[in-house]
């Protein structure tokens, strides 16, 4: 078995250059509803950049430095825009039933991103080393302990939550976002309802085509 050949085949069969970097798009892609994904991605980029700066200077920096406080403010508002965009993105994709025609994997990975992002946000709040992190850690511990997770995830262990927040979880989000983008570009935007009325068909990648209304 030649792994390189298999990888080549996987990429060439699933992602042409026009798929990855499209220069044309179906005319039905013509709504602000299509912008929320890239809005979330942009906010994620800001979070990574500002998070890197905060990580370089350490968790106490933003409490004592004006520049640090400003970078923290960028991070704070980046989080708000990120979750706002995700909410709108998920809602619009739900209204479009964007999982149709074999795109359930894209939906599935997207929901996973949301779940991991919520947990990343929690560890961010716990890493602030201020009143918020004190209160949230003693409050959140009860839910973690009740689920048994508290045995190995201690909300009051600043080293653990900070490491999770700046390394492990962002890496996981980035990997999932990469998979999400791959699936989006591979499959292209789903058709509007009613385009193939009464003609259920099998897609090449195994996904089913739902009967349209």
């Amino acid at each position, binding site marked *: 078995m030649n792994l390189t050949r298999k990888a080549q085949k996987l990429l060439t069969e699933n992602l042409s250059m026009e798929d990855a970097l499209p220069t044309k798009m179906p005319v039905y892609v013509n709504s602000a509803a299509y912008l929320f994904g890239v809005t979330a991605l942009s906010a994620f980029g800001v979070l990574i950049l500002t998070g890197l700066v905060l990580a370089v200077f350490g968790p106490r920096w933003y409490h004592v430095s004006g520049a640090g406080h400003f970078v923290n403010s960028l991070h704070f508002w980046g989080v708000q825009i990120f979750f706002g965009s995700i909410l709108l993105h998920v809602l619009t994709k739900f209204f479009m039933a964007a999982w149709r025609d074999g795109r359930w994997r894209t939906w599935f990975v997207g929901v996973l991103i949301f779940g991991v992002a919520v947990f990343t946000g929690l560890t961010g709040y716990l890493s602030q080393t201020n009143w918020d992190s004190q209160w949230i850690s003693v409050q959140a511990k009860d839910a973690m302990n009740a689920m048994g997770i508290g*045995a190995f995830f201690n909300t009051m262990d600043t080293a653990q939550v900070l490491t999770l927040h700046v390394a492990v979880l962002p890496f996981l989000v980035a990997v999932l976002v990469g998979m999400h983008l791959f699936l989006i570009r591979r499959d292209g935007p789903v058709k509007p309802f009613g385009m193939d009325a009464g003609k259920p068909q099998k897609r090449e990648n195994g996904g089913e085509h739902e009967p349209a209304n």
Partner: protein
Amino acid sequence: MSRQTDRYFSGIPMKSYDLLKEGLIMMMVIAAIIVVLAIIFGSPDYTPVRSQDVAARQPVAYLKTCAKALAGQSGIEGYGPPYTPDTDNAQDLFGVVPSELFGVTIPIHPAEDFVIAPLRRLAILDEKVDSALNEYLLAPPPQQKEWAAAYLGALDKAAFADRQVNIPAGEYGPVPALMDGMLALGKAGLLEGALESGPSLPYTMNFTKSLLFFQDDVDHGVARSLDMLGEQWGISHETGPYPGAWWLWPYTFLYQIPPMSVSPNGDLQAAAIMMVVFLIMLLVPFIPVLNRIPRWIGVHRIIWRDWYQRMQSKI
């Protein structure tokens, strides 16, 4: 396009598009919005609760916290896993107790960890505390608790004047001297360091004990003043006029309604409901009825209105 997308988009009119240009423009717009928000509004950073402040400004509350730990009345006493072995208070759901799975992984002995251990350190510097601690430790445990409980009760009648806490005379044994020592540790700002004793010192980055120490009366008092208690939507609130973790509202909402709001198993019930909701979200493409809702509510007609108008005009 690839073989796959060629087939999918077959017969559909295409328009010119520039992914990178659109992406870069959106990224710049979003970055600009975030910069403007950060410049105008800044971000919250509320000062943490520190033993130094609590000991100086609320000495009675501080001493009550210490005396409760010594008298076996700390909130962590009998909490269950992962702090204590007893499981009477461990949360269960339909007879399942997940916290029992891993047992005690972060052992906490409130009297020893919150009071005796810090005083052992202070005793090296203070002979009065040293002799009081020796007397206390040599007494039988029931006697120790009796002294601590009596002192705790007396704190309700304590007077605070001239930076001193004066309590009515009573049978407290060496406890007042121990409490003076704890108050001195707090006023000096040394309590947190003394609490986090362990083999990793001085590289302590785990604040479990110092956070658990103040979690009951002191932290709840601060949280109440900031509208951050659990029954006030708790951790989804932010200090000051800032948006909090509003994406947790569905979760914190569960704590506002029965049975979660009144049940001792509320945390586990809320967590279980959220897990089910998350699973439903994951699997919605495959769940009958749910996966048809988008067709019925018709928001897609707004999103794809140009396309549907185009189709209408062709008919």
